């Protein structure tokens, strides 16, 4: 969620029970603008908090002029000092998928790979490195997975220029109440997969400058999003059931929207049984 509107946004998301103490909120309000200045980001988003056993990681994302470019991510243990994370690689993603259990809360904690995946361990040993994976790498991979899987924005909020770059749509007035209840009005904010497999009828209604992302309608498994209207319809809140703790809010007919993750950083593998 936008760093400037953080307090109001947190109040809207608090229906899920997750929040930040006043101390942390104040610290964020002080340190996020400094981040924007130091790294020259155009926008800074507070991504959320991953709770480990002994400590929590607070994550922020910075966006450049092209909003769809890979975002730089920073983490902090106390909301004041931020460290930049390296972009995720495919290896990291593959290894991190196999790690189970809670995060420890210590970025230099090492998971022993030999027990988990003997092949990868063997490869690492052959390469001359130790067969361990650090928690920092797991953190990077988890954030990337969450963003890819469940980072969402409302339809029409971002517009793609003919040059290929993506900007916020100044004309976005917010979704109407009727539209806000439909899953098809929300898009994944990542590289689209298979945009072109639609019938001609559906394509006729689409606007190529707005509909350049995948919508939530065809997410597998069906029903992995819970849409609720809170406060009698003034806020629409989507919660992901695949990554428990991701909450997306939007106030219909206004420009306010955002998503935040407060959770343990574990994918909900029992989802098909729980529905």
């Amino acid at each position, binding site marked *: 969620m936008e760093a400037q509107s953080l307090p109001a946004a947190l109040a809207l998301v608090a229906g899920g*029970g997750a*929040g930040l*103490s006043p101390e942390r909120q104040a610290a964020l309000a002080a340190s996020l603008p400094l981040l924007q200045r130091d790294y020259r980001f155009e926008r800074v988003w507070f991504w959320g908090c991953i709770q480990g056993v002994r400590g929590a990681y607070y994550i922020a994302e910075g966006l450049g002029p092209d909003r769809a470019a890979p975002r730089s991510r920073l983490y902090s243990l106390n909301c004041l000092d931020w460290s930049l994370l390296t972009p995720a690689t495919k290896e990291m993603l593959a290894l991190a998928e196999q790690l189970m259990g809670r995060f420890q809360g210590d970025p230099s904690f090492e998971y022993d790979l030999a027990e988990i995946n003997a092949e990868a361990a063997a490869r690492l040993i052959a390469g001359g490195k130790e067969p361990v994976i650090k928690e920092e790498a797991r953190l990077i991979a988890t954030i990337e997975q969450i963003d890819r899987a469940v980072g969402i924005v409302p339809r029409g909020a971002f517009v793609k220029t003919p040059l290929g770059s993506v900007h916020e749509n100044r004309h976005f007035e917010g979704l109407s109440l009727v539209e806000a209840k439909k899953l098809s009005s929300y898009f994944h904010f990542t590289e689209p997969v298979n945009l072109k497999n639609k019938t001609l009828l559906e394509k006729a209604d689409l606007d190529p400058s707005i509909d350049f992302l995948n919508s939530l309608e065809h997410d597998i498994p069906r029903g992995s999003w*819970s849409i609720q*209207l809170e*406060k*009698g319809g003034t806020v629409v809140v989507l919660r992901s059931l695949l990554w428990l703790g991701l909450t997306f809010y939007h106030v219909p007919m206004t420009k306010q929207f955002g998503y935040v993750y407060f959770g343990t950083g574990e994918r909900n593998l029992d989802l098909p*049984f729980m529905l």
Partner: protein
Amino acid sequence: HGPYQPHEPGYGLDQPGYSPYEDQILDRKARMLAIQNAKAYLLKTSTRSGLNLYDHFANILTKILDEQPANTVDIIENISKDVKWAQFRKKMDTLRDERLILPTFEAAEKCKALFVKEGGEGQHEELDEEMPALPNVMETAFYFEQAGIGLSKDESYYIFLSLKNLTNVQPIQTCRFWGKILGLEMNYIIAEVQLREGEGGEEEETGEEGEETTAEGEKEMGEAEEEEEEKEEEAEPPKSTYKPPPEIPKEENGTGTNKYVYFVCNEPGKPWVKLPPVTPAQIVCARKIKKFFTGRLDAPIVSFPPFPGNEANYLRAQIARISAGTHVSPTGFYQFANEDEEEEGGDTHEENPEFEPPPVAEMVDSLTTWAHHVKSILKQ
């Protein structure tokens, strides 16, 4: 000099009919006529929408000159769309307003009703002594907020008001805000309540009597069947001697897992619903399944092993498990009321008046400073 040779560019342009300004009519009357023709074309009403291009352009230019947005040429199409939309909005406004009235304003009215009752109750100050100990929800919410957990202040206040309503409606001795459980369609707000003795017990007794009579009836049937079996042993294959394990007796209301009665509502402002007491079979089954709550209390639970009951029972079983597993307090905070009869009287505990809280640093470091103060559920 001008172009005289055919190969020079511009040759022949001085002939009438070929000059580059030919489309501009020089004759004044003809020009006026042409302008009127053009305007008449622009004023032509579209057959589909009843608009005409002339008025549309006039509106667009008025809007642009009024608002003077930056980079107008980039967003000119959007401005045009907005102007067209604005024409139609008047017709659809009435419909939209009617729809909006239902969800948003209804909920706002309910919340307001919560406040209004408070004003009415304030006049009856004589009842203050009888009013039970209401939990100070705002105070506990403040402490939880310092830890980074909690609902927004608005919601906490609404919950506080609806708890007050609950205490006015039901005969309640103590009451506590237990928490909130998220569901797929709606959420649950849960209050933990201890009813005044003797009031809630009557309904439950008849239920128990009914169960006992059916149990006896089944035993009689079992004996009759066995007699028949002995006579017809040769004809039928031997019946299995499997007797299901004896049904674990339900705990009485007011003891053990059924010590408290739980009320739920979907949102503050909606009426509170009482949850049925929990049976051991339900807890055993709830340990084996993992399901999301939908938010409707009468929804069936489709699972394996099959859960005996609907969502209200599952919710109650989960509440019982959570309460038994996680209610902690600093060691020494509570002491048993009667230290001689520890086995039987383990249910009642009182605050220890001589309790001295250890310093905060000590409490954070080790887990021995905390103790469970509710009995845990056996594996049975």
